[in-house]
């Protein structure tokens, strides 16, 4: 039977019809290929090429080839080290809390709640808000003079009057992270909720019959089976958090004392404000490399976890 099918396929492939269909298929995807190539591949390759030149203008011209100088300059720069540290801190802290809170909220929304559909739909609101709105919103919340946070703390007699939440570098970074967590936890909730709904209830029933407690079921059934969803969302959030730009631009503009400058914000400033296009291109590639390394690390970690779960 299989042999017969193979013969039919071979005859079809050698016929002119197959070649004709192949050409048609290629012709159909050609417009998309051209568009994707032009707007995605070309800039990627062009940026890589630019990173080897000392380009200080957006206009075409003859610019000196500097080899890997832009990459070495980044590693030698104390500012680059500082912004990389800020980005790594931002990435790990925000992703950790988004994942933890996201799993807890998803578990809650997966349980038989009253008005479950309503709760599930309002969880989307923070994520649906544009980051620019979210940034402005939290900037007002944190304002030392008229911010809601100080007012709330005052009402509950917890102090905070006149405190400037964005006034010192490390505190400001953490406050921006909270704003980011508030917005992006929703995304984690969706992924985890979708993952939870694929776990068959029989498994929990069987575990219950075997005397498993809910906590044991959570660690031994839920978490191992959620690993694929967790892996996807963690990678997505890590990549997004590492290249965070807009919320910083709106809330702090990198200040005070450059305490909230992240690698993307720094890259933006170097490229467009200072017009160091060659250096900026090298920085953009370094961001890609860092992101790939972090993603690879996560995938490796979670794959190990998956295998342990299976064993």
């Amino acid at each position: 039977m299989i042999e017969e099918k193979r013969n039919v396929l071979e005859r079809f492939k050698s016929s002119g019809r197959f070649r004709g269909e192949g050409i048609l298929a290629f012709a159909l995807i050609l417009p998309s290929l051209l568009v994707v190539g032009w707007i995605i591949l070309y800039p990627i390759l062009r940026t890589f090429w630019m990173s080897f030149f000392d380009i200080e203008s957006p206009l075409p011209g003859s610019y000196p080839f500097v080899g890997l100088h832009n990459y070495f300059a980044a590693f030698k720069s104390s500012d680059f080290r500082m912004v990389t540290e800020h980005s790594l801190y931002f990435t790990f802290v925000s992703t950790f809390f988004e994942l933890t809170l996201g799993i807890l909220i998803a578990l809650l929304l997966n349980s038989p709640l009253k008005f479950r559909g309503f709760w599930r739909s309002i969880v989307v609101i923070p994520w649906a808000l544009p980051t620019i709105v979210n940034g402005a919103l939290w900037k007002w919340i944190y304002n030392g003079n008229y911010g809601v946070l100080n007012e709330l703390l005052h009402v509950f007699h917890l102090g905070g009057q006149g405190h400037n939440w964005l006034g010192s570098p490390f505190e400001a970074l953490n406050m921006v992270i909270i704003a980011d967590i508030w917005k992006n936890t929703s995304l984690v909730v969706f992924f985890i909720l979708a993952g939870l709904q694929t776990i068959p209830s029989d498994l929990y029933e069987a575990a219950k019959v075997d005397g498993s407690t809910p906590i044991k079921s959570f660690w031994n059934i839920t978490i191992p089976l959620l690993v694929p969803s967790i892996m996807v969302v963690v990678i997505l959030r890590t990549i997004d958090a590492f290249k965070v730009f807009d919320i910083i631009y709106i809330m702090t503009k990198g200040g005070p004392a450059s305490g909230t400058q992240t690698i993307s914000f720094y890259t933006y400033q170097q490229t467009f404000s200072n017009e160091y296009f060659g250096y900026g291109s090298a920085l953009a590639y370094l961001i890609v490399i860092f992101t790939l390394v972090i993603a690879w690390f996560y995938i490796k970690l979670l794959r190990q976890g998956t295998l342990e779960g299976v064993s």
Partner: protein
Amino acid sequence: MENEESITDRQVSRRAILGAGAAAGLVTMMPTEGYAAGFSKAANVKGTISALFMKQAGYSDTDVAKMTADFKKVYPNVTVKTEFVAYEALHDKIVTSALAHTYDVVLIDVIWPAEFGSKKMVVDITNRWPASWTNDMLGGAVATAVYNKHYYGIPWILDTKYFFYNTEHMAKAKVDEASLDTWDGVMKAASAIKKAGLVKYPLAWSWTQSESMLCDYMQLLGAFGGQFLDASGKPAFNKGGGVQALEFMRKSIVDGLTDPVSTATAAEDDVRKMFSAGQISMGLNWTYMWAMANDPKQSKVAGKMKVLQTPAGPGGKRPGINGSMALSMSSGTKNPEAAWAYMSFLTSQKEQNAVAMDSLPVWKSSYTDPVVVKTSPAVVAQAKKELNDMILRPQVTKYNAMSLVIQAEVSKALIGQKTPQKALDDAATKAAAVLNA
């Protein structure tokens, strides 16, 4: 300021020799000289142009729309598309659109002619610049678009930071308003207001880590007799008046006279809002603050405020920061004549005088024009004094890169991470590296 004067003077003599014939030809195109004279030529100017402006309270979208509508009456065959972005996005928008030639006319800040001019992103309009403009405009305005003795735009917004104060607070704290003539007097007044319990923090500033912070610092550096760059172009702000200015700024925070929100997120508009709410008693700001803070619809202190020339430092110096802006022609424009017509029309005295309430004109004679004076007598009186003495940020090609490293260090000093001297020494080292790179 010395630098501004020398450029201007040299330009006058050069233009006087070379410019008479050219100016005679160009003058028919100048709406300043009368629309009727230029109208026959105006009909020959055709096409569509795009212009990029700043979204602001000075020349607002409405003001620009009105000016553009006036332009259309004189130049019926030119269509103008206008676009507005926040100041923070203006530079980068010009840079990112340069290659695509998106705009024919762009609004540039006083700190960008060197960068855009040297990179040929905006057109050198020296040949189009009539000699009379150099004399007819205020010196600070002329300097706005000059780099290396060439003109890269027509001055349009002439601005500096004035000192605003709440008269009610002064009266209640028994402060003699004459004492606000010096920064020392301002600090004593602030202490008296704080002591009287009228407000928690009498002062607020635009000290978020940005160019607005550097504007305030430069104005104070001038008052304390400091120098930004020395004669050889090396950083000199880490000596004398430059250090004293930053020490003064930090002390005002330590003494509890400056609202700490100033160093966190406050820019000019936050200062205006705090002042309008009666939350602070004094502050530096651009011209636009007068009209908004004195408007009862949006301010609690309307009718209870005054504006003064920026206070003097210990040596009596009191230059205002030059915060002017110019309209430039993008080097990629396909329609330079229409672009030039639009730029020169918007900057013409008649158009500027008509909206003087929002932004003061660049033309000297406007300040004695009863119509202009009537729009804002309080501000015009102070403007006459302050606009004659302005401090210019250095016209260097890498101004932005230099400014960013200085902003970071000044911010560290303001929040107490470093002493003012250490922060400025570090800033000077980094700024020198940028300038020498």
